[in-house]
């Protein structure tokens, strides 16, 4: 008798998600589906509003990465108005992006995925959580918390507030950075860089070696990748051209306002989330190594760039490629790539703070409404983020399309979970460790749903239902 296992996080801030694993009559995995409920009706709500409101409204979409939406919206507004921000405006935006990245990547590595790696996927729920991480490595945790404090403080200094930012405006940045503020930030950035250096060394020495077998086997799929690079091929997380790489390493580069020529959006009846695919490589297919399949997020960006123009990260990139090739395909390498990006953002923040332009008083240019289309794109921590706006002559929105980072990874997450489930569930037998490991495959992508699956008291907000082939509930488990 075939049966279905449903792993369902019960509730979360930014939506709901559930994992359904369908077994065949022999008790082996037939398929797995990860279903995310996204924000519905947002585009319709925005129609007819002044386009300059978008940098203020869109950070409300996601409480996890508001800065990415804020900056993508501001860039789309620049394009709609046909303006280029002055150097200080663009650099202050990029600085905020790097600081927000550091805060996110630290949180994810140490306190979300960290619980899996520092304590192990089979560890009891009572310790496999944030408090468990603190207990396992208190001195590390102390440093981590301090730098997270500093990241929040740095954003407060530059932009007034870290949540629901409003500092980036069409045409640039609303508030110049004072020189004494720059000096204060510079000291904090130094400390963040030290933590970033420590983190990657710590992970390479004490974390990844212990789990190399898991890294080599869990959730492994073959796909292409998408990310942003500068014209010279260097990694960039704020601005540049998009690079869509196939699994054989060949790639197409294109300006992000031409994304519709290269990226298609497929719809499946069982998912609220669209499935983007590489249009020029073939149609959509939810199969491993399908020609149109690609991934976004940290591993993708590290794969698509030719080099990193900061020395510490370039050395890390070279070591990474010596070990895993280009493009690297192992899903859990997202964590390793995330640490390379942490280091990049810390060094990039210092580079920007040392740039004399950063304290210029000329941070914005005036804008005038017009009928136009404008596309803004940044690399959000969870993947390439595209905001596409059209306005009428009064600057009111008439059309809008958003592709967020987690959406790019919709098909890959489904495939990785299927792969993980197939390798770990046999003859209908499974235990809690297996289910934790399936969740690890998802968490590697750092989708928006990942944060809420770790509760601070050590329990996972997960419900598991088992149905028979007729849809009758056979068993219901919760932790």
């Amino acid at each position, binding site marked *: 008798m075939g049966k279905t296992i449903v792993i369902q996080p019960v509730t979360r801030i930014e939506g709901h998600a559930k994992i359904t694993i369908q077994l065949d009559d022999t008790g082996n995995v037939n398929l797995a589906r990860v279903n995310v409920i996204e924000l519905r009706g947002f585009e319709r709500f925005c129609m007819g509003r002044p386009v300059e409101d978008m940098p203020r409204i869109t950070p409300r979409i996601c409480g996890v990465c508001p800065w990415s939406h804020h900056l993508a919206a501001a860039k789309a507004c620049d394009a709609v108005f046909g303006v280029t921000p002055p150097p200080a405006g663009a650099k202050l935006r990029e600085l905020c992006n790097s600081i927000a990245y550091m805060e996110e990547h630290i949180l994810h590595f140490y306190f979300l995925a960290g619980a899996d790696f520092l304590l192990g996927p089979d560890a009891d729920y009572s310790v496999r959580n944030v408090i468990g991480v603190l207990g396992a490595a208190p001195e590390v945790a102390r440093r981590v*918390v301090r730098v997270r404090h500093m990241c929040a403080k740095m954003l407060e200094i530059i932009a007034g507030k870290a949540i629901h930012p409003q500092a980036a405006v069409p045409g640039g940045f609303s508030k110049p950075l004072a020189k004494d503020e720059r000096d204060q930030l510079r000291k904090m950035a130094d400390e963040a860089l030290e933590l970033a250096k420590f983190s990657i060394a710590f992970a390479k020495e004490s974390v990844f070696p212990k789990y190399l077998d898991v890294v080599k086997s869990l959730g492994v799929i073959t796909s292409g990748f998408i990310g942003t690079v500068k014209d010279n091929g260097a990694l960039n997380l704020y601005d540049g051209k998009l690079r869509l790489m196939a699994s054989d390493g060949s790639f197409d580069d294109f300006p992000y306002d031409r994304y519709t020529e290269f990226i298609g959006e497929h719809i499946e009846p069982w998912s609220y989330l669209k499935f983007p695919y590489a249009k020029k490589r073939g149609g959509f297919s939810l199969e491993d190594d399908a020609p149109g399949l690609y991934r976004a997020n940290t591993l993708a960006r590290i794969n698509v760039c030719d080099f990193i123009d900061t020395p510490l990260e370039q050395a890390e990139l070279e070591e990474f490629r010596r070990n895993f090739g280009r493009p690297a395909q192992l899903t859990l390498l997202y964590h390793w790539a995330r640490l390379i990006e942490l280091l990049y953002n810390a060094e990039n923040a210092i580079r920007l703070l040392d740039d004399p332009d950063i304290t210029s008083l000329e941070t914005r240019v005036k804008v005038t409404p017009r009928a136009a289309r404008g596309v803004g794109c940044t690399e959000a921590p969870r993947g390439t983020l595209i905001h596409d706006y059209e306005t009428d002559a009064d600057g009111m929105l008439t059309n809008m399309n958003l592709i967020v980072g987690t959406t790019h990874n919709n098909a890959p997450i489904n495939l990785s979970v299927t792969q993980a489930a197939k390798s770990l569930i046999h003859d209908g037998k499974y235990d809690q460790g297996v289910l934790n490991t399936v969740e690890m495959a998802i968490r590697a992508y750092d989708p928006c749903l990942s944060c809420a699956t770790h509760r601070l008291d050590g329990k996972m907000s997960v419900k598991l239902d088992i149905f028979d082939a007729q849809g009758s509930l056979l068993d219901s488990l919760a932790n």
Partner: protein
Amino acid sequence: MPTIEEDAVPDFCSKPVLILGIGNVFFGDDGFGCALVEYLETHFDVPGGVCLQDAGTGVRKLLFTLCLSQVRPRRLLIVDAVDFGREPGEWFEIDPAEIPVVKLDDFSMHQLPTSNMLRELQQQTGVEVRVLACQTGPLPAEVCPGLSEPVRRAVPEAARWVAREYFDASRDRKGAEGRNTLVNF
């Protein structure tokens, strides 16, 4: 002269009183907490020892940091919308420690991880945690900002309660402003 250590602590950790309005303004009455914070900012003189923030849907990041921080406020008030089956617009206080475990699943549409962190803060760090909640009407399935009339009417009433409980108390203890809870983990 503050040290770099003190400089590095964000306001939501360093001020003695933290008031967070949380919710999603895109979904009708779920925006109650955010609306209340806006009302307090525009109708009251917020004391210097109070950090008042519209945390929207980003509250977990703040609570994560608070749970792990060595420097925390002495008092934390969460203002949120809930569905407890009462009359829409009815507002009341909830003790996080008294939320039965079986109720965690349906405490609210977005509260589960937040409520657990609140319990951690209350039980393990010594921070006084209170939750002011407002019963919502039916929430829209798609984006539809704006409070219903009963919940909108509750905003000024609840704001006056917050001001009385937190702003007045903060002014009464002016000498204590700037001090906060230092906890070693």
